[in-house]
């Protein structure tokens, strides 16, 4: 599908919304993982998402803080930056559509991340629902 299409990584992929086949939002494309082929040309292998992927792109002190805080708050099982293999991508348009639902992917949206690491630590934050 769409082989041979021309794409600019910054223009067409970075910062786009990632959605599942039912158009439910999963995450944003915060960075892209690249590998070199046999001729030395980089190609996209995965979508990277979350504050630890976004931080280095922001650059400067703010970027370092975002990445450092997210790294500090990550649990041991979250040591790697959340990624979606490019093999899951089925369509590249105004949003990036992937083949699997959010719950089946090892990617936590920023909202979930903030809920787990920030909001949940505020005393009383779970009072209404518990």
């Amino acid at each position: 599908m769409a082989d041979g299409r021309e794409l600019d990584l910054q223009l067409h992929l970075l910062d786009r919304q990632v959605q599942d086949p039912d158009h439910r939002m999963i995450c944003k494309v915060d960075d892209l993982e690249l590998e070199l082929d046999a001729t030395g040309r980089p190609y996209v292998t995965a979508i990277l998402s979350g504050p630890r992927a976004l931080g280095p792109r922001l650059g400067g002190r703010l970027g370092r803080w975002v990445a450092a805080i997210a790294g500090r708050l990550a649990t041991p099982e979250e040591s790697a930056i959340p990624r979606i293999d490019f093999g899951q991508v089925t369509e590249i348009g105004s949003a990036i559509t992937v083949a699997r639902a959010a719950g089946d992917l090892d990617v936590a949206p920023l909202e979930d991340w903030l809920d787990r690491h920030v909001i949940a630590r505020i005393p009383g934050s779970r009072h209404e629902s518990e």
Partner: protein
Amino acid sequence: MKASDLIGRPVVDSTGRRIGVVTDLRCVQDGPLRGAMAAPRVRDVIVSRRRTGSMLGYDRRDQQGPWLIRLLVRWLHRDLLIVPWEATQLTDGGRALVLTGAQRA
């Protein structure tokens, strides 16, 4: 390697003179087949001497849009370089991308 390792990286010529900065990576979907489609593979490095931001797609011939905006963006990027990936070299442990060949005609 990540896209952010390349986008924003300074570009120098073989003598070390600063040329500009990488503003985007132009790919073609002709890379290894991954799932439903071929992976985007870098063909060209887009280098801006001024770093006045994105071209917003106005460098493409088929791009539609207000002609005044198109003219303005193209004027701001009048010295944009589009360099084949093969004509560049990553410095070992360095921070710059070195141009070793000519830009795309």
